[in-house]
C-alpha cells in the first residue's frame, strides 16, 4: 500500500527548506554555463518548479541535491536550443549603458569595463573551469564542499582550481585586463 503523502503545508515547508539549502548551488551551475545572472535565475526557478511537480506526483527523490543539479545542468544546456537564445538578445549588462540616462561615475564605468572583459575571458575558459571558479568565488565554497558537490576528491579540487586560476590569470594578462580601480 502506498504511504499517505504529507499535508500540503508540510510539503511546502520541505520544499522551501530544499530551496534555501540548494538554490545557490543550482544558480551557480547555471551561471557557470552561461555567465548570465538572469538566465541562471530563470534556470534555478524552473529547476525548483520541476522538483515541486515531481514531488507532487508522489515520487520519492532520494538525493534531492543531485537531482536538482542534474536538472539544472540539463536545463542550462537546453537553454541553448530555446527560441530566446536563438533569436539573440543583448545581455542586461550590455543594455545598462544604453538605458542609463544620467552619466555614471568614472570609477563605476572602469569597473564595469573590467568586469565585462573578465566575463569575456571566462566565457573562453572550459566549462569545468567556470564551474569550479563559480563555486569557489561566488558561493565561497571550501575544498570539501566543492569536492562533495562535484563528486571528486579534495586533491582533484585543488588541482582543478589551481589550473583554472592559472588559465584565467594568463588570459587576463594577455588581454591586458588590469586590477580593479
Amino acid at each position, binding site marked *: 500500500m502506498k504511504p499517505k503523502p504529507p499535508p500540503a503545508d508540510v510539503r511546502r515547508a520541505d520544499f522551501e527548506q530544499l530551496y534555501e539549502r540548494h538554490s545557490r548551488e543550482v544558480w551557480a551551475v547555471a551561471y557557470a554555463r552561461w555567465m548570465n545572472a538572469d538566465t541562471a535565475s530563470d534556470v534555478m526557478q524552473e529547476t525548483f518548479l520541476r522538483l*515541486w511537480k515531481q514531488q507532487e506526483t508522489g515520487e520519492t527523490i532520494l538525493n534531492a541535491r543531485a537531482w536538482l543539479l542534474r536538472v539544472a545542468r540539463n536545463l542550462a544546456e537546453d537553454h541553448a536550443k530555446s527560441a530566446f537564445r536563438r533569436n539573440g538578445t543583448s545581455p542586461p549588462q550590455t543594455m545598462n549603458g544604453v538605458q542609463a540616462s544620467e552619466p555614471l561615475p568614472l570609477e563605476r564605468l572602469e569597473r564595469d569595463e573590467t568586469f565585462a572583459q573578465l566575463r569575456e575571458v571566462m566565457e573562453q575558459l572550459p566549462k569545468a573551469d567556470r564551474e569550479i571558479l563559480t563555486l569557489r568565488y561566488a558561493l565561497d565554497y571550501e575544498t570539501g564542499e566543492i569536492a562533495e558537490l562535484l563528486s571528486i576528491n579534495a586533491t582533484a579540487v585543488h588541482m582543478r582550481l589551481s589550473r583554472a586560476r592559472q588559465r584565467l590569470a594568463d588570459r587576463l594578462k594577455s588581454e591586458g585586463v588590469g586590477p580593479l580601480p
Partner: protein
Amino acid sequence: MRSVEPLSQNRGDNVDGLLRAFYRTQLPNPWPMPPTTFRPTLPFRRSLRGHGSTRSRWVLAASVALLLAGSLLLPRRFTSNVQPEPGIDALGTANRNILPDAPKMKTHEGKPVEKKPLPGLGFDEGDLLPDLDDSAVFPPK
C-alpha cells in the same frame, strides 16, 4: 579555515579579488523567493444546516417568477390607456391602410412620358421579335 591556496601571492590576490568582486555583482540581491508552486484556494464554505441548496433553489424560482410576471404585466399596464393616433397603431408603427391617400406621382409637366426607342437600336421593344408562324420554324414534312 580555507584550504584553497592562491597560486602566487601577488597574481593570486589579483585574480581572487577580481573574481570575488565580480561575483558579488552577479549574485542576485536580494535572493529570489522560491517559486510559487500552488494557488492558495479559499476554503469552501459549506452550509452547516445542510439545506443551503434548497434555499437557493427557492430564491432562484422566486426570481424567475417575478421576472416573468413583470414582463407580462408591465407592457399591459403602459399600453392599455393609450389611444392610438390616426395612422399609428397601438404599438407605434405606421399603418399603411389608414394613411390618407398619398398624391399620385405626376409625369414631367403633366404630360405622359413618351415611349422612345432605346438609343442605338433604332426600333421599339415590341419590334424585337417578328411574328413567326409554325411553318417557318417547323417546315412541313
